[in-house]
C-alpha cells in the first residue's frame, strides 16, 4: 500500500494529464463525455491527484498507530455497556489520536508546499503564484510576500497540529500490547476491491500509461543524449545530498539524544521547520541570498546542496537520533569495564547501533532529493537538467512521450530506494523481536 509513495506527485499529475489527453490511454473518457481537450485541470483534478499520491504519508503513521492499539480499553468499554461504536470512540480513538494527527499534518504540510502537480494542473495555489510571479513577471517582491504568507500558513498548520495532538501520553511499549482484531467476513471482497482500485490508480495506471507513451517515441528522439546528462546529474546530486545531510545530522542527533536542553531543542526544531517549508520558498530565499550575499554561489551546485540540506536535514536527524536512543548507556559502560578504549567502543558499540539509522537517512534523503522539483528548478545552473526538471519541462510543453522516459527512470530509481527501505525496515523489526 505504500507503493504510490515512490511516484512523485508531479509525475502522477503528468501521467494523468497525458493519459486523459485526446491521444492518451484514457482519452476516450473525455471524448465520450464530450469534454473539451485539456478538461482535466483545476482544483478537483489537483485534489484527485494529490489524494492518490500523498495518502501513503498518512497511511504509514496511521498503520503504525493501529498496530499499537491495545484492546483492553475497548473491551472494558463494551463490558461497561457501550455499543461497538461508542466503545470505539472511548477505547480506540484516544489511542489513535496522535497518529491520526500526525498523518493529517504530514499530508497538509505536503499539500501546502506542493508545487509541480498543482502547477501542471493549473490550480492556483501559493506555490504556483510564487512561481509565475517570479518566472514570468519577474516580480521578486510579490513572490517574496506570497512566500511569507505561505510560510505563515504552514506555521499555523504546525500550531494546529500541536494543539490537536494534546499533551503527550505515556503509552505502553511494543511487547505488552494485545491488539484489537476483527474478522472481515462478507465485507472482505468489496474492501479488497477498493484497495485494488487505489493501487491501480496509484501504481498500475501510471506505469502502464508511461510505458505506452514511451513506446510512441519517434526515432528523432535520442534518449541517451537527453537523459544521460539529466540522469547522471540526478544521481550525483542525490548522492551528494544523501552523504552531506546524514553527516550534518550526526552532531545534531547526538546533541538531541544525549544532552537535552534549550540549545538542542532549538536546533532540532529548526531542522523540522526546514522540512516543513515548501521547496519553492526555500529555493526562492536561497536565490535572494545568492544574489545579495554570495553571487559566486548563485546558480551553483553547492547552492543546490545547501537547499537540500535546509529541506531534508530533519529526514536525516530522525533515524540517526533513534539510533543514538536505542544505544543504552550501559552498553558503552559495559565496553569500558571490559577494557575497551575510545576507538574500540566506537567500532563495537556506536557504529552497530547507528548503522541502520545512517542507512535509512541516506535512502530517505536520496529519494527526496531525486524527486525534488521546485528548489531544483530555481537553483539549478542554466542549462543543467535533472530527471525531475525534464519531466516538468516536457509536460509543460505537452511533449508527453518525451516526458515519459525521465519519469520512468525516476520511478525506477525511487522504487529501488523505497524497496530497500521497506526491506531493511522488515529486517530491523525482525531482529528487534
Amino acid at each position: 500500500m505504500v507503493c504510490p509513495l515512490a511516484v512523485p506527485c508531479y509525475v502522477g499529475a503528468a501521467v494523468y494529464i497525458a493519459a486523459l489527453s485526446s491521444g492518451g490511454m484514457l482519452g476516450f473518457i473525455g471524448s465520450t463525455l464530450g469534454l473539451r481537450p485539456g478538461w482535466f485541470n483545476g482544483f478537483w483534478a489537483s485534489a484527485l491527484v494529490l489524494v492518490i499520491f500523498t495518502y501513503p504519508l498518512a497511511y504509514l503513521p496511521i498503520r503504525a498507530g493501529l498496530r499499537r492499539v491495545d484492546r483492553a480499553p475497548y473491551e472494558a468499554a463494551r463490558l461497561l455497556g457501550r455499543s461497538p461504536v461508542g466503545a470505539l470512540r472511548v477505547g480506540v480513538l484516544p489511542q489513535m489520536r496522535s497518529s491520526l494527527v500526525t498523518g493529517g499534518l504530514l499530508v497538509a504540510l505536503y499539500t501546502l508546499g506542493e508545487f509541480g502537480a498543482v502547477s501542471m494542473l493549473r490550480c492556483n495555489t501559493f506555490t504556483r503564484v510564487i512561481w509565475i510571479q517570479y518566472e514570468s513577471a519577474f516580480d521578486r517582491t510579490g513572490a517574496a510576500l506570497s512566500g511569507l504568507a505561505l510560510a505563515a500558513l504552514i506555521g499555523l498548520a504546525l500550531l494546529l497540529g500541536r494543539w490537536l495532538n494534546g499533551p503527550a501520553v505515556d503509552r505502553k511499549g511494543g511487547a505488552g500490547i494485545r491488539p484489537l482484531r476483527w474478522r472481515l467476513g462478507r465485507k472482505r471482497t468489496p474492501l479488497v476491491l477498493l484497495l485494488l482500485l487505489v493501487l491501480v490508480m496509484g501504481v498500475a495506471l501510471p506505469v502502464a500509461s508511461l510505458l505506452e507513451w514511451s513506446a510512441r517515441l519517434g526515432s528523432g528522439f535520442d534518449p541517451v543524449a537527453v537523459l544521460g546528462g539529466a540522469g547522471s546529474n540526478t544521481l550525483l546530486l542525490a548522492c551528494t545530498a544523501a552523504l552531506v545531510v546524514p553527516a550534518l545530522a550526526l552532531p545534531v542527533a547526538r546533541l538531541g539524544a544525549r544532552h537535552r536542553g534549550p540549545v538542542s531543542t532549538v536546533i532540532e526544531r529548526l531542522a523540522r521547520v526546514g522540512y516543513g517549508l515548501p521547496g519553492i520558498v526555500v529555493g526562492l530565499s536561497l536565490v535572494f541570498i545568492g544574489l545579495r550575499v554570495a553571487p559566486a554561489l548563485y546558480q551553483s551546485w553547492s547552492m543546490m546542496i545547501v537547499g537540500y540540506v535546509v529541506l531534508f536535514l530533519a529526514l536525516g536527524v530522525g533515524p540517526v537520533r533513534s539510533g543514538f536512543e536505542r544505544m543504552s548507556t550501559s552498553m558503552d559502560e559495559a565496553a569500558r569495564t571490559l577494557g575497551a578504549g575510545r576507538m574500540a567502543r566506537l567500532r563495537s558499540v556506536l557504529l552497530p547501533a547507528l548503522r541502520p539509522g545512517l542507512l535509512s537517512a541516506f535512502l530517505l534523503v536520496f529519494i527526496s532529493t531525486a524527486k525534488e522539483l521546485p528548489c531544483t528548478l530555481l537553483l539549478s545552473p542554466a542549462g543543467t537538467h535533472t530527471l525531475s526538471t525534464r519531466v516538468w519541462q516536457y509536460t509543460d510543453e505537452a511533449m508527453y512521450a518525451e516526458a515519459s522516459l525521465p519519469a520512468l527512470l525516476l520511478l525506477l530509481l525511487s522504487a529501488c530506494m523505497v524497496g530497500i527501505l521497506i526491506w531493511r525496515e522488515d529486517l530491523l523489526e525482525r531482529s528487534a523481536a
Partner: protein
Amino acid sequence: MIELRDIHKSFGSTSVLEDVSLELPKGALGVLLGPSGCGKTTLLRLVAGLEAPDRGAVRIGERQVSGPGRIGVPPEARNVGFVFQDLALFPQMTVEENVGFGVRDASARADRVEAMLELARLTALRSRRPHELSGGEQQRVAVARALAPAPDLLLLDEPFASLDADLRGRVREEIVRILKAAGTTAIMVTHDREEALSIADHLMVMISGRLVQAGPPRSVYDEPVDRSVAMLLGEGNLVEGTVRNGELQSALGRLPAADRPEGPCTLFVRSENVCRCDTAEVTATVLDCAFYGHDALALLALEDGTRLSMRLSDQSMPAVGSTLGLRIHGGYSIFARS
C-alpha cells in the same frame, strides 16, 4: 581484596552516599542489601569507575584506583568486571564474540573463551546472538563475558531482577557456582533478602546511603543493630517494653535482658521465634491465619491489644477466635526506643 574508605557522593544537592567504608577479603562474595534508592547501585558504579566519589578512597588489591590527589583510574584500566542490570550484551555479536570482547591478548583469547563457555555451560550456544537466548542464558553470557578478562573484582548490579521467580533461584545457584569455580572476588547488589541471605559470604546492609551493618549473614540476621535492619531482613514483631533489674517486661512477659540499659525499649522477635505453648502464662487470640503451603502465618492479638505475627511450621492451623498460650523460643533483640 577490596577496600573502600569514607566514600561520599552526592548528585546536585541530594546526598546519595555518606561515609561508606567496607572491606572484602579476596575470593569472597559480598552482597549489598538495601531497599531501592538506598545508593547501592551508585556504590557499585563508584567502584567500577563509572562515577567518581566526591570524597574517599577505593583500593582494589594493592592498587589505589580512586582517592585523594584526584586519583581516578578510568573504568577500562581498572580490571573490574561489571554485570549490568539490563545485561547490556552487544546485540550484533554472537555469544562467543561477546565473551571474547574483553580479552586483550589475542593469542590467549580462543582458549580463554573456550574455558569461559565451558564454565558457564554455553558451549552449545556459542554462535547464537543474544536475542536468540532465554533470560537465564543471557544472564550466563553476561557473567561469562565479565569474567573472561580475569578481573580482580566482579560487580553485579541486581543481575536477577529481570527473571521470573521460578527461574531466579536456579540461575542464582548457577551464577554462584561459576563465581566460586572462578575464585573471583565479587560484590552483588540486591533488594531481595532471601537472595542476599542465601548466597552472601559477607552481608552488607545499606539504608539511605549509609552502610548500617556488615558481617556474616547469620549474625546480621540474628543480631541486627537496629529495627530498620531487623525489619529489612525478615518478618518480625516490634513490642514496646521496659528494662528493669536486668529483665525486660512487656506484653510478652518477662525475658532476661542482662547488660541492657535500664528504661523504655523496643523488643524485636522474629515471627518464627514466637511459639505455641499451652502451659505458658502469656495468651493471645487468633485474628487471622494465612496458609502459604510450606508454612502458615497467624495474626494474633495479645491481652493488651498488641498485634503479633507467628509463623507455624507444623501443619496445625489454629481456629480463628481461639486462644493460644505463647512463649519466645530462640533469639530476640532489644533496641533502645527511638
